């Protein structure tokens, strides 16, 4: 086994015991990048030299007898929409080209204080708008499991990096499924925390009321540990929740017999592929054998989630992306007639097609005369969807369903048809609208592309879904449905 194949918790222990050094871990990951990056294109930029320097520093301190945090020296990939001080940040958009962040996002401050090593910034759909990482101004990312397939999106670079061993863990952001769906496509674990559990300060906003940063990891244990590191109340984010972060990783092996498991009734709806349905049924069977009572739960407003999302998210985005005007940073134009021409030129050449589409949709639904019919109504639907979950969570503690209706699809297959692309997030979007927690864990069967198993929990129900998915992960291993890398 190569070092880059191992999860962070194992590497952390090995480094602590002196079995391996941080330099060896970083070198292993860098060599993997050397080997695979040209085809996969997970990264917009790799900080190889700096990463090695930091690793040397860590090894020196450890040798000096210093006790370092458990993840000290673990290479982490960061989605290119999370600000790292002194580094370029582009959101995979041309419009931000050349912009260097003068500050660290709160999550970056936290991972730096853990002495984790930022190995690079990962490719994504422009401004996190997309489900395939094909909407990047810097080229597509390929699925490491099958390079003819997309890695999912928008955190496709992060998911592909973790899946390929080009990173040990990664940070992504999830507005409608952007962590979970690429994790499902690439066969890794993706976690979207409860809205407000992780600070958004320093995450470049797509849709502020939906965005949430979360980890992409090789296994559930790493997801729990990463969540512990990045979660917590932040005074720089008014929407961050005033809660004490539990020690998730020490609770994983706790008994789950008290946890009530629900199965989303709509898992086999039209458009869900055969292999995905089979995957879910496999999971149902696992729980039955474990003598866990599995209950079916329904979501009457499920079909409205997608249209509701495609009003609220673009509305917020149209406002959030208005600041990219060529005045302060990013690309600009030297000679223009007036300020309007500057705006027009910069925004015309700087934004890609999908971003423009969503800005236009968002501008439209907020316009006077349309606001009530679209935006306000969507907010009401959002409340109904929230109520669906509240009702369901009276009977169950976690809800299981597919992460995405299909496994990874082919590159170019859906680019011409935005609706088919949007449908890829139909199962993940409701958790964002409701602001609750959710995870995707992979199920591998018969050498096929993995199926993402989606486990949704209550608001601040992280511990329940982590415990259930940890157990499920163990059972999948037992049944040979688990595939490390």
């Amino acid at each position: 086994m190569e070092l880059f194949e191992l999860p962070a918790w194992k590497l952390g222990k090995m480094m602590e015991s002196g079995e391996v050094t941080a330099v060896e871990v970083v070198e292993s990951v860098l060599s993997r990048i050397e080997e695979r990056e040209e085809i996969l294109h997970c990264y917009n930029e790799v900080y190889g030299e700096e990463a090695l320097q930091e690793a040397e520093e860590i090894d020196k301190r450890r040798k000096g007898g210093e006790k370092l945090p458990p993840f000290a020296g673990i290479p982490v990939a960061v989605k290119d929409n999370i600000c790292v001080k002194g580094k370029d940040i582009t959101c995979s958009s041309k419009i931000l080209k050349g912009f260097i962040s003068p500050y660290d996002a709160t999550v970056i401050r936290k991972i730096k204080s853990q002495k984790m090593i930022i190995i690079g910034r990962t490719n994504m759909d422009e401004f996190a708008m997309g489900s395939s990482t094909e909407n990047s101004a810097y080229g597509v990312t390929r699925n490491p499991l099958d390079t003819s397939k997309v890695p999912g999106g928008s955190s496709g670079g992060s998911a592909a990096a973790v899946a390929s061993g080009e990173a040990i863990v990664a940070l992504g952001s999830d507005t409608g499924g952007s962590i979970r769906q690429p994790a499902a496509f690439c066969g890794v674990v993706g976690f979207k925390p409860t809205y407000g559990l992780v600070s958004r300060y320093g995450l470049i906003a797509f849709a502020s009321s939906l965005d949430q940063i979360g980890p992409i990891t090789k296994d559930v244990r790493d997801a729990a540990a990463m969540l512990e590191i990045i979660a917590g109340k932040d005074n720089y984010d008014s929407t961050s929740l005033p809660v004490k972060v539990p020690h998730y990783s020490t609770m994983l092996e706790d008994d789950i017999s008290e946890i009530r498991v629900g199965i989303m009734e709509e898992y086999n709806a039209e458009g869900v592929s055969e292999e995905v349905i089979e995957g879910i049924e496999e999971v149902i069977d696992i729980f039955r054998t474990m003598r866990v009572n599995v209950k079916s739960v329904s979501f009457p407003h499920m079909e409205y989630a997608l249209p509701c999302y495609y009003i609220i998210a673009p509305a917020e985005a149209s406002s959030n992306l208005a600041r990219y005007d060529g005045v302060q940073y990013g690309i600009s134009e030297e000679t223009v007639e007036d300020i309007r021409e500057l705006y027009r030129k910069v925004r015309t050449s700087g934004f890609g097609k999908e971003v423009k589409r969503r800005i236009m949709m968002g501008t439209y639904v907020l316009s006077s005369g349309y606001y009530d019919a679209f935006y306000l109504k969507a907010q009401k639907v959002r409340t109904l969807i929230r109520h669906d979950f509240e009702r369901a969570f009276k009977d169950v503690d976690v809800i299981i369903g597919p992460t995405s209706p299909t496994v990874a699809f082919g590159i170019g297959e859906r680019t011409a048809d935005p609706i088919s692309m949007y449908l890829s997030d139909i199962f993940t979007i409701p958790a964002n609208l409701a602001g609750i927690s959710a995870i995707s864990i992979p199920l591998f069967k018969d050498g096929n592309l993995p199926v993402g198993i989606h486990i949704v929990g209550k608001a601040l129900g992280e511990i329940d879904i982590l415990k259930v998915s940890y157990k499920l992960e163990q059972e999948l291993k037992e049944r040979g449905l688990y595939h490390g890398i």
Partner: protein
Amino acid sequence: MGYETVIGLEVHCQLLTDSKLFCGCSTDYIGKEPNTNVCPVCLGLPGSLPVLNKKALEFALKAAIALNCEILPYSHFYRKNYFYPDLPKAYQITQYDIPVGRHGWIELPYSHKRIGITRIHLEEDAGKLVHPTKTGRIEHATYSLVDYNRAGVPLIEIVSEPDFSSPSEAREYLMELRSIVQHLGISDGNMELGSMRCDANVSVHREGEGLGVKVELKNMNSFKALERALNYEVERQIKLIKSGGRVEQETRHWSEPEKKTISLRGKEEAQDYRYFPEPDLLPIYVDEEILESIKSDMPELPANRRKRFVSMGIGEKEASIMVIEKSIGDYFEEAVKYFGDAKSIANWILGDFLGELNRAGLEIQDSRVKPHQLGRLLTLIKDGTISGKIAKKVFSIMFDTGDDPDEIVKREGLVQIVDRSEIEKVVEEVLSANPDAVESYRKGKANIFNFLVGQVMKATKGKANPNVVRDILQKKI
């Protein structure tokens, strides 16, 4: 047939909080190097988020209470979306459907008219554009610079009902409003420096007819400018209607040098601000407890202070003037502690003192003459050490040097002469030097008497006690 005028005002006041509305940057930006009083939040850098300054909310609530508003237990922020280079996020965080307070009123100090307050809300200020040309105006510039030092400074916007029927009423309101925010300690209300800004809506109509078309006026940077601009605009509209024209709904800009209003943009370019609730901020809840603690901490307001000043023995008009600027009222009250005759103190402040301040271009709080020194000066007059006339001279020296009046009187030898024999000697000299004057006085020209008093005063360099001089002259002549 006459015309009636309808005016409403929108006033913005910068709040005197230590930090900006949504970040930790200072609100003290004036005179700072451009773009040095900034951070990722007020620059609207990607990824930054606003966090509400609770002090600003408290200040806004204070204003709402002072303006007799209904305080809403729940309100929230909205985004007002528009593109302009001084607006770093391309939206302003402001309030929309539910402001901090609404349905208030204010009573004007002179006319005692009650003016309705429609609403008062909290919002952030924008940056400032600089057009590097001789005129400083955008239409002459080939490029513009932007300074974000001011971006994010907290503002309250106070919208009045269209209750003013004349420009002078509008001015009276604005002065009272400034006095209120000064007394609350929430804004310095300086129009010249832009910490208080005023836009007006003006329309005229024939008596007995429906309301006319509203024109918005901007860029009035002083009380005088406001009144001038309103007068100009009212006249312009009346003339236009009389000549058969039609008033356009538009925004007009007051040009102080040209003394006229200029059309800025018409209705056809009216913007759609696409307001929607700011998702980065939580709703604002104002519970009874917060409200009670603010109410219990309210300072005295101008209306009450005026009444109190009158009860101290000064005229209503004097009391009003003294309250227009809070600092003058403060000075007055402090000086009264050292010299109990409020009326004399008021006369001195409103007379010589304000005159000197105007000449020197100073505010009363910056004067070298401290309240206890003014009190002492008046004590010296009262106990006969110096005459009122000499006191003016002493005050002038105090104003320039900040020295104590006793020291000046001693140094300059200005102690009043009360010794009768000494004055008698001077009177005799004056009488013998002015035989003609004495002659004409005796022939019945009574006002010559004052001339002779003056001559004696002059000869004693003003130091003789004028009452003693009169007494002796009367007897000698």
